[in-house]
């Protein structure tokens, strides 16, 4: 029975958002592999040029951002956050290339936000230990247990729905403009693309990354996340 389902049939049945997410992820992976091969040839003493400058700037910026928010534990988080930021940004602006943005599908955004949720809980467990982590749910008095649990469950829901709603509203308004104006939409669509795809996509990427950092910082013990100390060190 399963053999009857050919690959083309499977590909036809999945939704357009997932389809474009697969295509974009593959293209991005190929580009990143090529950049990685070029980076391996590059020695630290060489003069950086071309794409290497961009990659260096990106890594530097993400390192600084993580360092200023969560302190000394930034080293393991910065690569993950850079990956998420690149993927989300390319997903959000893929409307410019004629794709349906993958983040306009609830399943894609919830995949991102549930990953963040697991990461937040893992950071809480690793930094405080199981006992203290469970005890933090009874903070400040045991009566607050349901509220603490709700505030934890609200993390993936709010993150996922925020991204989904923003990108979907942009997509709906764009398709309304294209449907109503027809060929005349060429006159105003560049400005709308600039706002809804580039600006909104960038802001949402930034917000997703910052909120991930803030939620993780909330799980860490207080002495690690002194904002002003971290700013002076970096």
């Amino acid at each position, binding site marked *: 029975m399963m053999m009857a389902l050919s690959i083309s049939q499977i590909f036809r049945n999945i939704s357009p958002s997932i389809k474009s997410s697969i295509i974009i992820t593959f293209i991005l992976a190929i580009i990143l592999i090529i950049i990685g091969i070029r980076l391996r040839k590059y020695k630290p003493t060489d003069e950086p040029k071309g794409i290497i400058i961009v990659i260096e700037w990106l890594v530097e910026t993400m390192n600084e951002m993580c360092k200023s928010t969560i302190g000394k534990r930034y080293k393991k988080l910065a690569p993950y956050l850079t990956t998420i930021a690149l993927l989300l940004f390319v997903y959000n602006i893929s409307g410019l290339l004629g794709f349906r943005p993958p983040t306009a599908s609830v399943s894609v955004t919830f995949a991102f936000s549930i990953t963040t949720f697991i990461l937040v809980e893992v950071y809480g467990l690793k930094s405080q230990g199981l006992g203290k982590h469970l005890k933090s749910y009874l903070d400040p008095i045991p009566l607050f247990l349901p509220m603490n649990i709700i505030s934890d469950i609200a993390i993936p829901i709010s993150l996922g729905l925020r991204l989904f709603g923003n990108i979907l509203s942009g997509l709906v308004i764009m398709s309304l403009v294209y449907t109503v104006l027809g060929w005349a939409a060429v006159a105003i669509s560049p400005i709308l693309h600039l706002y809804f795809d580039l600006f909104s996509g960038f802001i949402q990427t*930034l917000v997703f990354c*910052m909120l991930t950092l803030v939620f993780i910082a909330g799980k860490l013990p207080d002495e690690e996340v002194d904002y002003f100390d971290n700013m002076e060190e970096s």
Partner: protein
Amino acid sequence: MKLLMTILEAAQFNSEFIRGMACLGAGIAMGLGAIGPGIGEGIAASKACEGTARQPEAAKQIRSIMLLGQAVSETTGLYSLLIAFLLMFAVR
């Protein structure tokens, strides 16, 4: 008997009635839901204006913090947008 007939007659209009009410609800949800984020983002922008006027050298940081806060407070408006979409397309 007459009451039963009336109820049956009303039941025929039921799906259309629900559809119309759902569209009305979508409009109300979007209209009322847009008030809060609009006021909130306006307050954030005005405070950022004051901060930049008082301390022009911190303009860059203030702008990024303002945009972050606005994007977060926009979420409540997006929730009402999602509810409006649900009412428009999921209720039949």
